[in-house]
């Protein structure tokens, strides 16, 4: 059971979109942007409020890579590994970041909850390859060293 404030927030978001089954995705998107992850308890709560089964809500939430049941770090770094970025050596950037942050594919978030490292299949910015984003801010033409520098900056910030 989460703190009551979570459910109040969920109520607020549900009221904004309307308690209908078709509003599931916008509702859980808003919840995720509020908490940087989708608390499972809230998914269950939302399903009940909008009249769908828990399993249906879980089905939708797991279909989209974007939803996460795990709390994410303050900075969510998405390294693009689409074709264009991949051929311009995004893998080296990714490996550097894994080493720098001490995270892995299985454990993408740092223990201090500062960083979450993910890969995405394409950010649609192939002209800027290799590219990564930090909380939706785009960093173009990255190199492993530039990535290390970026982490140092963010840590300092």
């Amino acid at each position, binding site marked *: 059971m989460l703190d009551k404030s979570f459910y109040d927030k969920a109520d607020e978001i549900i009221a904004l979109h309307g308690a209908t089954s078709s509003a599931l995705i916008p509702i859980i998107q808003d919840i995720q942007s509020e908490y940087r992850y989708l608390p499972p308890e809230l998914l269950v709560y939302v399903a009940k409020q909008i009249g769908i*089964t828990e399993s249906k809500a879980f089905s939708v939430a797991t279909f989209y890579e974007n939803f996460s049941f795990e709390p994410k770090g303050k900075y969510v770094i998405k390294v693009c590994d689409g074709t264009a970025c991949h051929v311009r050596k995004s893998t080296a950037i990714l490996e550097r970041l894994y080493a720098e942050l001490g995270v892995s594919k299985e454990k993408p978030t740092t223990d201090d909850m500062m960083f979450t490292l993910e890969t995405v299949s394409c950010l649609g910015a192939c002209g800027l390859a290799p590219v990564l984003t930090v909380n939706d801010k785009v960093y173009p033409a990255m190199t492993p060293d530039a990535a290390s520098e970026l982490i140092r900056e963010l840590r300092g910030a």
Partner: protein
Amino acid sequence: MKYITINNRKVPLEGEKNLLSVIRKAGIDLPTFCYHSELSTYGACRMCVVEDDRGKVFASCSEVPKEGMVIYTNTPKLQHHRKLILELLLASHCRDCTTCRANGTCELQKLATQLGVDRVRFENTKEIQPLDTSSNCVVIDPNKCILCGDCVRTCEEIQGVGVLNFAYRGSKMRVMPAFNKQMSETDCVGCGQCRVVCPTGAITIKSNVHSVWEAIADKNKRVVVQIAPAVRVAIGDKFGIPKGENSLGKLAAALRRMGFDEIYDTNFGADLTVMEESKELVERLESGENLPLFTSCCPGWINFCEKKFPQFRKNISTCRSPQQMFGALIKEEARMNKEDTRETIVVSIMPCTAKKDEIVRPEHFTDGVQDVDFVLTTTEVTRMIQEGGIDLSRMPSESLDMPFGLASGSAAIFGVTGGVTEAVLRKLINSNKIEDLEQISFCGVRGVEGVKECTVQLGEREVRIAIVNGLKSAEEILLKLEKGEVHYDFVEVMACKRGCIAGGGQPTPIGPRTKQARYDGMYNIDKAAQIKLSNENPIVQSLYEGILKGKEHKLLHNEH
């Protein structure tokens, strides 16, 4: 007249909702995994593909038939496609056919033979997933799932439970409860309808066969077996006996040869239920408390009501189900019989998976002893008969044992929707005149609609009745009751569509013709019964004077 052309033959259109139905009407049995006429169309398995005159290939289940269509169902192109689709389905499927519970009934296996798939070119790269054996009723093996979604839609659309759904996507997609919970942690009611529609061995019945064989072999145990009403019209399915035929006598003969010590009828328990439940209805009508009275025979329904509508718990009849009344009675009789030193084991043969859950509920232990020890479904007993090397079709028809093998026609129809109500009405109207019996049967209690309503005059009082089958329909009625939109005095609920005849433990496949044959079979048993009313069963009468005297409450009712 509107028509379409299928394989160069004209076939009339008669309002079919999809092309597949027209093709099947024309006598062509197109294969499908994901199409069930009672479920929404999903169009996932692609086995029902057809080709039109322009060479376009599409799934017939999700195509609306249009006048003038020219369709081919078995061109070389289609044969190629179908075989490839099946091969791809098989690619990620566990192939341990010989040790699979569904061996012989598996649709995937059947089609692989039918379509001539003699090798699978692809390697199975899927990670092996653990089995979910947490439920008392079904076992889920994700490694055998072909993602047809039949269970998902049945659970949600027919039963209104919605425990199972797809999760994740692409090659990682699986069917599972939310958050991959164990089945025992979910709202699963145990009805087993997911298992009925599952075309493979991904959902199977939790088996108690081994434990029962062991009990039979133990000379220190007296193994008593009771046979539920709907079992007798389905047990013959796998032995070439016509669908819906009453095979009770043959089953009794087989059970004796297998080593069961005493063979009785759950219908006898049903007669006791009629006695108690009709009494309870009259009491509640008089006091006006906790109306409507909900029936309590169906454990899937009880689970559903408790988990989803606990506010209606008090409305459920305190009567135990026929199985539990029977079990409690046999165990009580054994306690009183000091001469027989053997331990009495009560086995039930049930059409139902939820009955496996019912026997372990805390209220079904008397003085710390479990009233019913094992539940075997019709499907498990079918297997035991086969394991015993017995050909049921060649068995003589033998009688059940006395005294608990004698039951009325009222009890026989417990296996279909409306049967419990009809039986209770017979008892309350208390007339065995043919015209009175017919009047009851025509008052609206029969039929297979999800919700039936009728009103019956009982003395001064008009009694409003609803008869519900399928838990989705039950949910609708409960919501209406909650809002005060409807008013009833008596509500019969059966979790499974059409009642126990299509229960989760019955032999599959259960197509529309099988369902109808079993349905008719139940009423035929009633027609042939010399005793029509439960209160006319002489054994029931003598029990109330004997062993039950003063113990009605202890043995036949549950406290809330």
